[in-house]
């Protein structure tokens, strides 16, 4: 490969200056002329009949412009299974159920109006675990599906079942088997910028959504459907994204509040803003999908995995967002993390009266990997094999086709594991442990490792995994790159700019990325699945080729050389050595053998029948949708990684301190190592939070810790010493060899930590988060067991 000017450089984010000076405009900061403020009334009960709603006093409050209830709006089903509606009508199923909404001249008036609404409920029996919801005689959360067909069970009719090979055969020939049950809980995305939207109609009833969505074009679709239901079938929708104060998957669905804003805007004829506060964010922003999983795995006498069997129960909450589809991605590690010939995975989603869940960084992969990798350490122990050695024996290799038919072209997993092992000082620690030198008073050190596989080359979860791009050159040689991707802080605009400058052959200062507006930018399926850099990067390379072809065609005519004799480097059109330049030869030779692109462009523009240079492309990666059996090459490259952790467990307090955290990632190629490290740091930290402290605590379905005092986000003071290790495997499918990297950081954190705790103190914590109380309880139980069995007298 010729020398690269921008790819691989640690360039700062293009939006960083605006953000560091406070100039960036978030939805929280945006006002529109005449704008009203919307507020939502949520249910007082987790499950109840709404007998009556009296909004008369709210409507009469000065400053109130509209009050809507479920009775006032048309049927407009929303959500993955269309089992939800923006305002509920005669029944509430969760504490976050939206039952009325107000638009008023300011926030205070809107809030006051909510207080004046009188709702009469008739509480119904409620269920708060999947097990309860499946028990005989449990109340039905939904009685009819979206098509009006009666529902007879709280179990959702979703087909999550993957069978590869023969699990029973594998079990039969296993020398060692480990089995366990693992639980994860509700986690809030905790975007520092709370959710918000402004809905605004023009006089022709066309809708503009000032939004923070990660899926502008799919959202556009959803809004169009809503408008149709509202009798506005001819209206257009424009989605304009603001600076986004954190994504992490929370903006992959269209949410009730967005539709409520649309309804209020229509009712009032004014722009309506709904802006969540933090309490609302904890209540009404769907969470990470909680799961209970039973995992068993077995291996032969050489330590080779023979089977993996996973049964999972998902608490779906009262309605269905993307959480119910996370099993599709959980399949990735379940079928394909390590070489395992026989796999079975069955997942059931169950309605309860809890909060519902959606996408969150890793899309179920962190939950599934917690089960698999915790269990794998148990199996290694059974088999008497060193856990790192055990992983290396079973590691995926480049050239593998996995049981789910994933085609692994490049695989840095063995290297990641080795680097983590070396960085931890694994052998030295084993030795110290054997000799009891890992203990200092009541503090004991332990080490643990866990690996990951994730989609690294897009993910065909919809029929299209495509990305449209337009490149437009102006008279001055400045390039605008129009992309449908969304900047959620990850740095996509910066990396795309690097790739575009590189691929076209321009100085990076002459390249600007234009995004966040569906009227201007071409279609993209969404900023999810760690796909933005991969897909938009490949789109840029494809689009750049077309742009260069057009440039060379134009320049060749001007310079009277063949287009193939030309190159574009750093904004200069260069005539290849040896090419005979006739005619315009003077202009060329004057400057040596090159001419500024801007000159070529102006000449092309200001000549009879002039032309300007624009190129467009639609890049859809060569990956496959999963077939009916959930098999197929979902992603055209696969990301791998391993985390290695050293912890110190305090036997008296149960506190777990992280002394070392190595995060090795096979990223294909680092397009911008600084931003890449940012993804690894941030992802790992999110994984550590999931492991140790984060949980939305629900009491009868209602969050009781919906604030940052009680919901423990890690702080700078927690000092998790993360060391990113970048492993480059140069994937042939990736832009300049790169794979996706946005999500993987958080995937292996929890099991690596759980494994390290086990290594330190011999207790297996299989429920997240691993709080000091849980550690202490496990230590106590272990001691009691020990006393009961070994020393009945103690």
């Amino acid at each position: 490969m010729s020398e690269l000017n921008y790819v691989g450089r640690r360039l700062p984010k293009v939006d960083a200056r605006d953000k560091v000076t406070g100039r960036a405009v978030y939805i929280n900061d945006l006002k529109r002329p005449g704008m009203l403020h919307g507020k939502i009334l949520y249910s007082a009960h987790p499950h109840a009949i709404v007998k009556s709603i009296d909004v008369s006093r709210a409507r009469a409050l000065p400053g109130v412009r509209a009050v809507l209830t479920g009775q006032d709006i048309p049927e407009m089903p929303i959500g993955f299974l269309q089992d939800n509606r923006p305002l509920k009508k005669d029944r509430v199923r969760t504490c976050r159920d939206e039952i009325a909404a107000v638009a008023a001249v300011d926030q205070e008036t809107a809030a006051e109006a909510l207080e004046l609404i009188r709702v009469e409920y008739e509480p119904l029996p409620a269920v708060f675990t999947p097990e309860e919801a499946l028990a005989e005689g449990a109340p039905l959360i939904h009685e009819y599906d979206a098509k009006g067909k009666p529902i007879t069970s709280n179990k959702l009719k979703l087909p999550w079942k993957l069978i590869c090979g023969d699990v029973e055969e594998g079990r039969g020939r296993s020398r060692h088997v480990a089995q366990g049950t693992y639980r994860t809980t509700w986690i809030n995305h905790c975007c520092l910028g709370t959710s918000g939207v402004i809905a605004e109609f023009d006089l022709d009833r066309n809708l503009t959504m000032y939004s923070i969505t990660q899926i502008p074009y799919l959202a556009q679709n959803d809004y169009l459907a809503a408008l149709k239901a509202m009798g506005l079938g001819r209206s257009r929708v424009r989605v304009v994204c603001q600076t986004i104060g954190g994504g992490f998957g929370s903006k992959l669905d269209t949410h009730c509040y967005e539709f409520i804003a649309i309804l209020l805007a229509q009712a009032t004829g004014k722009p309506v803003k709904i802006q969540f506060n933090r309490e609302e964010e904890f209540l009404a922003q769907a969470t990470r999908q909680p799961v209970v999983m039973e995992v068993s795995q077995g291996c032969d006498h050489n330590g080779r995995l023979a089977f993996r069997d996973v049964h999972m129960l998902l608490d779906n909450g009262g309605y269905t967002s993307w959480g119910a589809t996370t099993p599709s991605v959980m399949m990735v590690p379940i079928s394909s993390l390590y070489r395992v010939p026989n796999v079975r995975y069955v997942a059931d989603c169950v309605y309860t009266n809890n909060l519902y869940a959606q996408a969150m960084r890793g899309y179920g992969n962190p939950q599934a990997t917690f089960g698999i990798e915790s269990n794998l350490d148990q199996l290694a122990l059974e088999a008497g094999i060193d856990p790192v050695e055990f992983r290396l024996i079973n590691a995926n290799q480049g050239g593998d086709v996995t049981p789910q038919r994933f085609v692994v072209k490049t695989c840095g997993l063995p290297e990641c594991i080795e680097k983590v092992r070396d960085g931890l000082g694994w052998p030295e620690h084993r030795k110290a442990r054997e000799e009891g030198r890992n203990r200092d008073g009541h503090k004991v050190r332990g080490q643990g490792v866990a690996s990951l596989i994730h989609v690294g080359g897009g993910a065909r979860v919809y029929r299209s995994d495509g990305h449209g791009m337009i490149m437009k050159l102006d008279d001055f040689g400045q390039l605008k790159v129009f992309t449908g991707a969304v900047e959620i802080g990850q740095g996509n605009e910066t990396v795309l700019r690097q790739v575009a400058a590189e691929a076209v052959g321009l100085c990076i200062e002459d390249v600007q990325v234009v995004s966040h507006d569906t009227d201007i930018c071409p279609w993209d399926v969404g900023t999810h699945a760690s796909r933005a850099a991969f897909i938009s990067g490949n789109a840029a390379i494809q689009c750049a080729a077309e742009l260069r072809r057009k440039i060379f065609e134009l320049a060749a005519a001007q310079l009277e050389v063949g287009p193939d004799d030309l190159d574009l480097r750093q904004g200069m059109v260069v005539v290849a050595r040896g090419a005979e330049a006739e005619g315009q030869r003077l202009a060329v030779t004057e400057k040596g053998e090159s001419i500024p692109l801007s000159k070529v462009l102006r000449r092309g523009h200001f000549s009879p029948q002039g032309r300007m240079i624009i190129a467009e492309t639609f890049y859809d990666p060569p990956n496959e949708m999963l077939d009916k059996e959930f098999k197929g090459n979902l992603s055209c490259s696969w990301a791998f990684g391993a985390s290695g952790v050293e912890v110190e467990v305090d036997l008296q307090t149960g506190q777990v301190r992280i002394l070392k955290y190595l995060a090795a990632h096979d990223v294909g190629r680092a397009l911008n190592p600084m931003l890449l490290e940012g993804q690894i740091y941030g992802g790992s930290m999110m994984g550590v939070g999931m492991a140790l402290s984060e949980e939305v605590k629900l009491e009868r379905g209602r969050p009781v810790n919906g604030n940052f005092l009680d919901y423990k986000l890690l702080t700078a003071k927690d000092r998790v010493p993360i060391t990113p290790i970048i492993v480059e495997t140069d994937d042939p499918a990736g832009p300049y060899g790169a794979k996706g990297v946005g999500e993987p950081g958080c995937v292996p954190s929890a099991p690596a930590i759980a494994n390290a705790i086990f290594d330190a103190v011999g207790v297996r914590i299989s429920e997240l988060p691993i709080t000091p109380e849980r550690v202490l309880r496990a230590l106590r139980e272990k001691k009691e067991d020990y006393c009961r069995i070994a020393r009945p007298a103690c």
Partner: protein
Amino acid sequence: MKRTIEFELNGQLVSAEVGGGQTLLELLRQRFELTGVKEGCGAGECGACTVIVDGRALTACIYPAMEAEGRSVTTIEGLATAEGALHPLQSAFVEHGAVQCGFCTPGNVLSAKALLDQNPDPSEDEIRTALEGNLCRCTGYQQIIEAVKAAAGRKP
């Protein structure tokens, strides 16, 4: 009960009519349109609304506007020069990848500034303590700490 107060805001003397229950955050965002002061929780728990009052970093969302009377208030808008030259801390945040979504950034920069103004050569522990109240969901803090170290004239 309304009252007119005077205070220094980003180096300029200003006056404003404030109500009893009004917070400094509301005053700055609404009356002065200084939207670089962010609201992340409204309860003093996230640090997004951090401003510097008389040299001390504090959370404007729980600070009564009336208290600003006669004091000197610095917001993120007061750091860069009018010509756009960034404060060394701001440059360091940009150069070290300390900014992702950016919502926590103004608060983190200002907490760091209050620290460095008092203690130009802080240890990593002192930096971490000073930034403890500024939550960041994106970065895992490491690059923020590096930026502050760099701005303090120390090599990370």
